[in-house]
């Protein structure tokens, strides 16, 4: 190796990256299989995640959450070229190691929804709205988004009991003090404070409320000045939960407005109709708006499409797919 080579550390290997070479070409040269497409920084197929500092020039055009988590485009990174970065460490493709957690409390908040609080002994640096994978003793895993803020000192998840659901049924039966294991955090659906005056439009169905609560609370904690519209949808009024708590939060923060939407049996407290239609109606003009969408895959797709066709730029629509298609090099 010459003095000018940079080093790429990946999965216990050290790969030399000579001047002029990209991280993508160096990884390929070393026989690693990295997906790639345009090789010009446009298609984003070769995105990898750094563990530590990422080559900043290779983060151009990525959304703030990706850059914030060290993602960069392997085809655009030339770490040996000035300004040289001696070492680029890539995140372990197996993802973070599981950590142990204890149940701190379980509240039934709706007929089939429990709010579960967990304390984690190890460090789990997360951003509200990200999710963790809960590991069932059988090996099955399920993803749950976090409604809490790190300063709460405990994680908060909202778990709907799925009929015959192995993991959700088990979680509902846990008692305070019980131990479980989880892995994370994952996901890009969280608040970043790059545009504090923007209007935030948070739309979710069912337990999709959990990440929205996390995002709203973290935006308020960061001093977000723009209005925040939170729209929670459910089948009927009794399926909507945490209403008192959301009402109290809105009272404390006049910039936060909470809207409820049901498909049927609406009272004067709810809008009635399909969530995407109601959300677009209460949202009004979409200029200077950033949207976060949470819920099952079908509703998120419908919302995404509705907002996009109504004129919201695709770059302002944030949603984690229910079964996340993780970017290349991201934890699998």
């Amino acid at each position, binding site marked *: 190796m010459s003095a000018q080579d940079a080093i790429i550390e990946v999965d216990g290997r050290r790969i030399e990256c000579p001047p002029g070479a990209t991280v993508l070409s160096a990884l390929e040269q070393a026989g690693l299989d990295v997906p790639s497409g*345009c090789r*010009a*920084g446009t*298609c984003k197929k070769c995105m990898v995640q750094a563990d530590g500092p990422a080559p900043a020039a290779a983060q151009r055009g990525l959304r703030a959450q990706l850059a914030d988590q060290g993602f960069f485009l392997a085809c655009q990174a030339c770490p040996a070229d000035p300004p040289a970065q001696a070492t680029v460490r890539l995140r372990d493709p197996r993802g973070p190691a599981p950590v142990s957690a204890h149940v701190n409390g379980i509240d039934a908040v709706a007929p089939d929804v429990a709010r579960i609080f967990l304390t984690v002994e190890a460090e789990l640096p997360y951003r509200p709205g990200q999710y963790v994978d809960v590991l069932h003793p059988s090996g099955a895993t399920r993803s749950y988004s976090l409604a809490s803020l790190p300063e709460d000192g405990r994680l908060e998840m909202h778990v709907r009991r799925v009929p015959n659901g192995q993991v959700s049924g088990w979680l509902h039966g846990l008692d305070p003090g019980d131990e479980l294991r989880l892995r994370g955090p994952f996901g890009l659906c969280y608040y970043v404070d790059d545009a504090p005056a923007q209007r935030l439009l948070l739309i979710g169905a069912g337990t999709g409320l959990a990440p929205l609560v996390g995002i709203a609370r973290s935006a308020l904690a960061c001093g977000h000045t723009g209005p925040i519209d939170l729209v929670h949808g459910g089948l009927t009024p009794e399926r909507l939960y945490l209403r008192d708590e959301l009402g109290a939060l809105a009272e404390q923060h006049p910039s936060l407005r909470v809207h409820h939407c049901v498909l049927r049996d609406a009272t004067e407290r709810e809008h009635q109709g399909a969530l995407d239609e109601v959300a677009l109606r209460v949202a009004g003009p979409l200029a200077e708006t950033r949207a976060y969408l949470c819920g099952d895959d079908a509703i998120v797709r419908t919302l*995404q499409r509705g907002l996009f066709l109504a004129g919201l730029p*695709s770059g302002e629509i944030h949603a984690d797919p229910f079964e996340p298609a993780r970017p290349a090099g991201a934890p699998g």
Partner: protein
Amino acid sequence: MSLYERLGGEPAFTAAVDEFYRRMLLDERVAHFFADVDMQGQIAKQKAFLTFVTGGPAEYTGEDMRTAHAHLKSRGIDDEHVDVVIEHLGATLIGLGASQDDVAEVAQLAESVRADVLGR
């Protein structure tokens, strides 16, 4: 100077690809092909395509295009659908400030992709 640069480069194309994709979703002749795709992923791919056909920084391999569209063959993708895409491509570029001559040039380049998309 490439058409890509003349039309404003990366920032202009970020907005233009949204417009291009909106046109496709609203056109019932092709919308059904996009019913179940991941929107953000599709927009990234189309941005690479728009960048390529206007001479911007994107490499293109016919093989990629072939693989990406193979599953649409059984769903009846045909010449008329490629025509629709080229039509929206032209309208999007005009919206960005391209001339008719520019559009004709781009259409010619897009034609070269037709056989790959249709798996011929």
